[in-house]
């Protein structure tokens, strides 16, 4: 009998504790609670208390602003972002930057859901293929009239233009990216200059070719193929650029010691294990590769020529963007624009250079050879369409490559079928 009473009492206490804990935590839970925030944002100078019940951030005095930033980065990249945020807060007393890390695959959904009802963050970090969708849904704000304040004039023009859609600029490009040819310095002594030499070298040291559409675009563009014309009609099947690219991919797949797969993880693993000496991948893999093989043991080759009758390997030019939410207003929006300007300064860009970002401010000091290699590749890159018609390209493009590599169709037929589907989906 008594034990039952004690049990009941115990459960009641537990339930009460849970309720108190749930009610006491602040609603917007920043992943990093910057301890340096205390003197600036809380003039009542309440020291950070563990129960957090009285320390709810009350409305700071008029000059201060709170800036909310959502991102999908992890590890070293997230740390760099936090460092930049801290420096910004130190330089702008009264302004706080609340960072929220969301798993990347949920980030767009989370932002879309919250922003479409009027909420959400002030700034969103994301890749540039989100521009068309978010702009159409009126969830992000164009930056044209705030270009100078946001520091867009400090940046590489190609990077800024990459974020244009329907004549307006929709995002701030913090860095650019493009895939290039990584190589293991222990295994590769003489760099290939063109696609034939590449395959010959591959027979000795191994090569990883990513056959996904995004990565293959470098080869397609290298041979002169284009996805869209000015009216966004698919022209992959016109000319022989796509056909030559698909034939090269087929040759590469049949070459000894070449792993041609759409699974990037598999190619990464093979390169990090030392099974292959070269791989096509982007600057996002810098930290990973350097950790596995050692700094200085990996490098990036200069863009190769696609032969015969092609030009240099020209992959998609991507940008890592900061979007300004359409719901951001008043003090928060001003703070957001100031933050963007801060990000465009060379010393802030240098923080991100350390984690493998290629700076979009051309005046940033850059001595990392890997990043210099990528910077050279970005000079030979293809425009990555922001138009929403691009959304209809991915699956047919991937199928086109698969069909040719599996011998299910000739390159000409595969390209024609892909363009047919793409044009029908886009009603062109």
């Amino acid at each position, binding site marked *: 009998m008594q034990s039952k009473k004690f049990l009941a009492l115990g459960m009641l206490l537990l339930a009460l504790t849970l309720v108190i804990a749930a009610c006491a935590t602040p609603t917007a839970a920043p992943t990093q609670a910057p301890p340096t925030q205390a003197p600036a944002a809380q003039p009542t100078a309440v020291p950070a208390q563990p129960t957090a019940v009285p320390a709810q951030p009350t409305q700071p005095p008029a000059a201060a602003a709170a800036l909310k930033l959502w991102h999908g980065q992890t590890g070293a990249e997230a740390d760099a972002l936090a460092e930049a945020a801290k420096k910004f807060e130190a330089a702008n007393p009264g302004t706080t930057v609340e960072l929220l890390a969301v798993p990347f695959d949920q980030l767009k959904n989370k932002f*879309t859901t919250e*922003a*479409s*009802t*009027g909420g959400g963050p002030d700034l969103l970090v994301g890749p540039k293929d989100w521009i*068309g*969708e978010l702009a*159409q*849904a*009126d*969830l992000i704000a164009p930056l044209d009239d705030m270009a100078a304040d946001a520091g867009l004039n400090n940046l590489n023009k190609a990077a800024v233009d990459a974020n244009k859609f329907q004549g307006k600029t929709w995002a701030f490009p913090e860095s650019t990216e493009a895939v290039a040819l990584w190589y293991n310095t222990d295994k590769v002594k003489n760099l290939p200059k063109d696609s034939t030499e590449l395959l010959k070298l591959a027979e000795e040291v191994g090569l990883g070719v990513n056959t996904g559409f995004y990565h293959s675009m470098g080869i397609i563009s290298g041979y002169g193929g284009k996805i869209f014309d000015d009216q966004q009609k698919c022209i992959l099947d016109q000319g022989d650029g796509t056909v030559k690219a698909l034939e090269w991919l087929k040759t590469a797949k049949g070459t000894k010691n070449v*792993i041609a797969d759409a699974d990037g993880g*598999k190619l990464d693993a093979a390169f990090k294990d030392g099974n292959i000496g070269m791989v096509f991948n982007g600057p996002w893999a810098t930290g990973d590769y350097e950790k596995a093989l050692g700094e200085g043991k990996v490098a990036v080759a200069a863009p190769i020529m696609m032969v015969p009758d092609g030009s240099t390997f020209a992959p998609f030019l991507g940008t890592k963007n900061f979007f300004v939410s359409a719901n951001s207003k008043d003090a928060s929006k001003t703070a957001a624009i100031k933050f963007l300007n801060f990000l465009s300064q060379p010393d802030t860009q240098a923080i991100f250079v350390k984690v493998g970002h290629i700076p979009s401010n051309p005046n940033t000091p850059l001595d990392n050879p890997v990043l210099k290699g990528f910077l050279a590749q970005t000079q030979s890159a293809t425009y990555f369409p922001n*138009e*929403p*018609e*691009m*959304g*209809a390209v*991915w*699956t*047919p493009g991937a*199928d086109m490559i*698969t*069909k040719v590599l*599996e011998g*299910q169709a000739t390159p000409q037929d595969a390209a024609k079928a*892909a363009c047919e*589907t793409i044009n*029908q*989906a*886009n*009603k*062109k």
Partner: protein
Amino acid sequence: MATSELTRERAGAKTNKHAQAREARMARTAYLYILPAAIVMALITFWPLLYQLWMSFTNYSNRNLRTDNLLLQMVGAFTGNTAYNSPEMVGLANYANILFGGLAQVLSGFDFWRILTFNLVWTVVNLVFHVAIGVGVAVLLNQEGFKLKRFYRSLYIIPWAMPALVSAMIWRNMFDDQSGAINQLFRALSLQGDTRWLLQVEPPLAWLPPVIQVPAWTDPFFFLFLFLLLFIAPYFLRWVRERWLVFTILWALALEIFFFFLLTPLLNLFAGLTGNPTAGATLTVSLGSLFPLSFFAVLLANIWLGWPFMMAVATGALQSIPKEMYEAAEIDGATGWQAFWNVTVPLIRPAMIPAIIIGMTMTFNQFSVIYFISGGGPLHQTEILVTQAYRLVNEVTINIPGVGNVRPYGYAAAFAYIVFAVLATITLITNRVSRATESAAD
């Protein structure tokens, strides 16, 4: 006498009324208890379902995400009021495009009847293996004096307890053609160890019957679906089940002859009568062509994942069978096999039927296993309905006239409802069948 009868009657009437009043009060209390849960369910389950139903009748896209008032947006779609960013009503157009081929033109590799047939066969084959292995192992582990019973039962629960994503990723790595565990094992045993499990496009059993021949201007998989439906339909009749062997042979032969030889001329005749131009070409399609090698790979992984559930349910059901039944069967001279079919199966059936229905729903919509192991297979050959719905929401833009190139959420909503309709039909049929067979056994 009369008075006491009357009194008893009136007392009975009063007791009757009392009983009714009490019942009404108890019912009201019961409803009050359910009310909180009902409100929550109405908000999180029924309201989104209704919203999705509305969405499936409109051309809703990511353009319509931003609105100041959700309810007025819904009303605005009917009245044409554009103040709340309402989409337009398109009636049944979304459903028609999915079912009758419009979507196939804009979504690479989409063929509704092929996917539906594949999905159904995938579900049935999986369930057969799940139940057979699950019940078999449960019976084996239930033997008297089996020492390591508990150890094995706990061991076999592990596949079910692991997150499906983790299992799927590990299986995917195992099926890799160069460095996967399975091919490495084959190579260690000096067998051919370079099977491209997930990448080979040619089906290994392409000749597997039934084989049908249709004119090139029709959808062959629609007729394949029809074949399978017609093949299975008669088994609901007891008359057929009693003569199942003879009937199966004759019926299979009859259907095969009709679908292979007679269907094409019939359809061409029909088309000629209605004035549609016909091409001369015919397509020959076999059931085996639906199943590439990656189907078998994903099947293996899903069987591994799914049978512990059936084993757990069967184990529970087996505990309730009294030992006397088996002793009685032994006395009557039943062999182990006969004891199994005549004692065990009917007695665990009441527990297995709901388990099979749950298993059917889970397998039909088994997104993680298919998406993370084969990704829809080489060239979309192992797609199921839910993976296609996922693509519609996340990977594709379609040009909707008057709106632009947008994510077609209205289509995806219609897709989801079609999946719901298929599953509801199967569940209702299964319910009917299970009751029918139970009454046959009584």
